[in-house]
């Protein structure tokens, strides 16, 4: 295919999409090569732009629209859903699930991050020392992260089973009583946290490990010449130099943990009561949890979640910028 063919084709595509108002190629007798190059470049980008518009922007718009309407089963048939402004949001904010869901989302997110990050960091520092098998063992650590979340959640659900679970059997042998991990309100959150922390450790380990690799060896040599011990080296050198990578790891963790759905849904479904219900779980339960779907309130809950995610997202981008500058 020649370059001219691509140019005319892309011009057609771009104008059809209405993405940019362009000067038609015929107006200029000899388009500058630079201008043409950019047109070709846009042809390469066009599929992704169209994709983003159709499969990101449009679903998000539909979801937003949904949250302002009263969408019922009837609406699927006759296509009518009255516009009710903020009624769904008011309903959701007044719901007795709102307060527990907000607290649970916060607890789940922050406790997960604290443990995932600190355990990941300790392991990264540990595996950074070269010893036989260190690379192989580090690779094995990744397996839990790559497994389908549904699989991990099922395994944890069985391990934490009250009567036949290995965890309670272990507690018994060391003389502690049984715990109803998944079925008692005070332990259900702990259970889903355990599973989620376990799943998040590999991700933290890999990113922090790559951060350690970027710290120049000379810094450590200088520190050891000055007689710093292991603890001092960690606190005065490793930790501060790792700060940009740590910030990104934590913020990514925040954004990803807010989304967590599979683990909680499989292990507890947010039960008992609302003791492990987060915004993601609440939204799913309203929309698809069985019975009659309440899609509009579900969309409203989802949009509250997106506001939270967006705040963290902005923080993430700010930290990225700082990292690029430094």
């Amino acid at each position, binding site marked *: 295919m*020649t370059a001219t063919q691509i140019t005319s084709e892309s011009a057609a595509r771009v104008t059809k999409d209405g993405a940019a108002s362009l000067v038609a190629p015929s107006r200029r007798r000899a388009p500058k090569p630079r201008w043409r190059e950019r047109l070709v470049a846009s042809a390469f980008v066009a599929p*992704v732009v169209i*994709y983003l518009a159709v499969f990101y922007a449009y679903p998000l718009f539909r979801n937003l629209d949904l949250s302002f309407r009263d969408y019922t089963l009837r609406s699927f048939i006759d296509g009518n859903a009255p516009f009710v402004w903020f009624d769904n949001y008011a309903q959701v904010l007044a719901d007795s699930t709102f307060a527990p869901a907000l607290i649970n989302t916060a607890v789940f997110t922050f406790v997960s991050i604290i443990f995932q990050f600190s355990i990941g960091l300790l392991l990264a520092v540990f595996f950074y020392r070269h010893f036989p098998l260190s690379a192989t063992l580090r690779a094995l650590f990744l*397996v839990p992260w790559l497994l389908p979340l549904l699989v991990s959640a099922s395994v944890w659900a069985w391990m934490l089973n009250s009567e036949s679970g290995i965890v309670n059997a272990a507690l018994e042998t060391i003389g502690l009583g049984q715990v109803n991990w998944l079925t008692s309100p005070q332990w259900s959150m702990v259970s889903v946290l355990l599973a989620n922390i376990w799943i998040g450790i590999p991700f933290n380990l890999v990113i922090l490990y790559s951060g350690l690799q970027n710290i120049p060896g000379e810094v450590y040599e200088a520190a050891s010449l000055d007689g710093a011990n292991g603890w001092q080296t960690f606190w005065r050198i490793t930790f501060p130099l790792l700060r940009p990578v740590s910030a990104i790891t934590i913020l990514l963790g925040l954004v990803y943990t807010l989304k967590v759905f599979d683990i909680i849904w499989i292990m507890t479904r947010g039960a008992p009561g609302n003791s492990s219900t987060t915004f993601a779980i609440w939204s799913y339960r309203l929309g698809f949890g069985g019975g009659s779907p309440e899609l509009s309130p579900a*969309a409203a809950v989802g949009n509250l979640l997106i506001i939270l995610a967006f705040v963290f997202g902005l923080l993430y981008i700010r930290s990225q910028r700082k990292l690029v500058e430094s």
Partner: protein
Amino acid sequence: MRTRGRLWKTAVGVVLTGIMLFPLYWMINVSLTQPNELRKDPPNLFPFNPTFDGYSRVISEQLPYLGTSLVVGLGTVILTVAISAPAAFAIAKLRPWGGTTLNFVLLIAQMIPGIIMAMGFYLIFFNWGILDTIPGLILADSTLAVPFGVLIFVAFMSGIPNELIAAAKIDGAGAWRTFRSIVLPVSRNSIVTVSLFAFLWSWSDFLFASTLNRSGAFQPITIGIYRYIGNNTQDWNAIMATAVVASIPAAVLLVLAQRYVAAGVTAGAVKD
């Protein structure tokens, strides 16, 4: 003395890895346990008297689900690479209009919670008549990987020497030819990385599968397991056998493509 110190570390490393991988061991152990021993207290730590009944049930009952997941996974990989590689080439080397904005949008796109996408897709797919179909699920699953794919490809393709592309141009190759014959072959590693993640994410997806393809004729393995848990709370050895089988792609890919996995995680997270 030095060697002893290092061996000591290896021992600690092995113990830590053992703790981390214990749930996986437990999954395999339970999958091989006789059904009448499942409720034993304390449970058997080792399958002394293994049974493969769970696995034969997987093969007889879950094979269609596995097939669907394979088709959806491969479809997602093809769609993701086809859309993201050309765009990334343009952003990295051709400087299109709005390239920086696009990068920013892709970064944001990755942060949108899946449940919100699922809700929008549900209405749209209902209107389009692709609810409960494999193509619908492929489209939905690709949204997990496309932004990631573009960002990884951009990070990689920026590293291709400009001279290589200039040389192709001098030889008379257009942008498309350059992309196909120069950029794509050189980018093999990043194609492997993106394909790997696109496949694993769509293989693991439960949220889209359960909202957009819950009652279709062909359902993915995550729905298969979910149904099992719902219907057979007694048959945990069959459930765990299915879980083991569903984990095989992750294990195989990790063994075959270890370094791509690490490269994908770090590049996806740290570069923009």
